[in-house]
């Protein structure tokens, strides 16, 4: 009977809340559309800036007779400039770099690091000159009949061990936890204000408190409502970002995007979903504590703004890649679940650590719900005057 009553209350709360346009906006529309859109916007901006830099003609002075190098520079869209005093031209910014190839034994790249274009020229020329040096070495080896290894006994070799799946998950691990934190906070804050302060704003407090149910059932129904809506916004965001990243990146990054892959293993999917549930429970408990005394939407929003910030600030820990989920960090609320999401996407997390993290989160939820219960018992007017109210004697 108690569960049935809870279900009736929950359904009433859900119906009322989902008929509010702003709730739909924050719980469904924002997670589905805003973050994929923001990522697309950021990637477009990066792409436009990179293309712009590539298009900018970089002016280079080439000293010395190196026709092969001259052709390579022209091929890479450098503008070759004749100069009588390259150093003076560099200092005045008339040219962006000077490649001094007058010596047979040495190539010298000279630039003035004050200028942004000079730095771009250095970056692009360094790679080009490295390749040119390799070609020259090979030519010298062939001419003298020597082996390449005789001329270059110490090799530098690069090898990318990361798979496309690794790269995709690294990218997802960078975006997703932060997006989920923002989305879960927004998805929880508005419904919490709506269900708590909204009762006062619409003068339905006495109606609700006069029902033949206990205060615990009323609070529990409200809590479950906020948890549900948080979970919905988190799952919407997870689906939207996972589905949209490839289609966003493909037109912008061309072949580079095709090298990415982000299929989840069932373990990762379960860990992500459990993390969303744990974080939703935490956010819901914290938002209800903050909004319990709010008498209007404005008061409710004012009360939850610091909470929103305190959820987002710990997310800066995600930037530090040396910080990982372990038996020390798993105790820190918010950070632990964010790290769980990130690490489960990138390196994987041992099951025991996942369980301990979730248990810690539940511990925090219990603590916050205890605080909520204490605050309600201290102030009878918070939700009305049902059993346990002791404020008015």
């Amino acid at each position: 009977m108690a569960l049935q009553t809870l279900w009736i209350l929950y359904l009433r709360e859900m119906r009322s809340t989902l008929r509010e346009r702003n709730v739909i906006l924050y719980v469904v529309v924002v997670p589905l559309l805003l973050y994929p859109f923001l990522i697309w916007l950021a990637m477009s901006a990066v792409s436009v800036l990179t293309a712009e830099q590539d298009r900018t003609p970089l002016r280079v002075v080439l000293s010395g007779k190196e026709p092969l190098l001259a052709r390579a520079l022209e091929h890479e869209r450098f503008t070759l400039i004749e100069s009588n005093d390259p150093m003076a031209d560099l200092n005045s910014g008339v040219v962006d770099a000077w490649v001094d190839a007058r010596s047979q034994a040495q190539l010298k790249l000279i630039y003035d690091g004050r200028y942004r274009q000079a730095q771009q020229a250095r970056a692009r020329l360094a790679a080009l000159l490295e390749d040119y040096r390799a070609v020259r070495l090979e030519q010298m080896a062939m001419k003298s009949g020597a082996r390449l290894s005789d001329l270059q006994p110490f090799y530098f070799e690069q090898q990318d061990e990361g798979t496309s799946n690794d790269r995709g998950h690294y990218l997802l691990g960078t975006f997703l936890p932060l997006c989920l934190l923002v989305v879960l906070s927004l998805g929880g804050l508005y419904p919490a204000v709506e269900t708590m302060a909204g009762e006062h704003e619409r003068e339905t407090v006495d109606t609700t408190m006069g029902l033949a149910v206990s205060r615990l059932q009323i609070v529990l129904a409200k809590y479950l409502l906020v948890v549900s809506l948080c979970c919905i916004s988190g799952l919407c965001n997870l689906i939207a970002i996972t589905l949209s990243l490839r289609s966003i990146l493909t037109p912008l990054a061309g072949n580079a995007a095709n090298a990415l892959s982000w299929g989840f293993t069932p373990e990762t999917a379960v860990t992500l979903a459990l993390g969303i549930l744990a974080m939703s429970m935490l956010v819901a408990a914290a938002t209800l504590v903050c909004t319990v005394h709010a008498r209007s939407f404005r008061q409710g929003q004012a009360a939850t703004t610091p909470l929103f910030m305190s959820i987002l600030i710990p997310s800066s820990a995600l930037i530090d890649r040396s910080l990982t989920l372990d038996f020390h960090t798993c105790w820190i609320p918010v950070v632990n679940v964010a790290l769980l999401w990130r690490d489960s996407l990138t390196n994987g997390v041992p099951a025991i650590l996942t369980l301990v993290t979730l248990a810690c989160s539940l511990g925090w939820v219990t603590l916050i719900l205890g605080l909520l219960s204490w605050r309600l018992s201290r102030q009878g007017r918070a939700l009305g005057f049902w059993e346990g109210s002791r404020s008015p004697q």
Partner: protein
Amino acid sequence: MTPLVRAEGLRKVYQDEGRGPFEAVRGISLECSPGEIFGLLGSNGAGKTTTLKMLATLLPPTAGRASICGFDINSQSHQVRQKLGFYSSSTGLYPRLSVTETLDFFARINGYPKARVAARVQELIEHFQLEQYRHVRVERLSSGNKQKVSIARTIAHDPPVLIFDEPTVGLDVVAALAFQQRLKELRTQGKTIILSTHIMSEAEKLCDRIAIVDSGQILACAQLEELRTASGLHYLEDIFIHYLQSNKAPG
């Protein structure tokens, strides 16, 4: 007939941070039987709403005892609420629920038998002539129709005891008359009704017994004719002022 509402020495003290303890209700006792409309007549701040909220288990009394249908308001509040319909200007409707959803919710949550809820909702919709609005959200209804839904939701679980706290405040004459008519119908059905008001004509027309309340106390409680005889005055307004002045007179 056995009274369904009994109150004995109800007291309520509020702890006001600025003023200290404030006694809003000072030992109110009353009884109310089925088929009776019991009027609480008093000016603003007399203690009517506090008394009714204690009876409705929305406020715990500081002292005294009361029961609804034999259930104690302190220890059996759940049963009390199932036997009670409470209507006041502060018990607003959930604006985003439709008329049907509203009535269905209040019937179910207050313990009306599940199998009979749909029939009860249909019966109420027909009785209050709300057929064309059954799927309309409450927030989109006119004031008159909202008031019909409010009364319908108060009686949705068919409680034997009804409490109305200043129900006609803010209503126009036509709506107030319609409400009075519905109250009479409920009395005919054998409901026990407590009506709080400061509108004399309403109390005169509707109430079988009237309690004049001032400063948290009942100054007089009787049928209108008995009050007339006791005070020697005809109009309820004069009777009311007479008791108020007697209460304030030195000694």
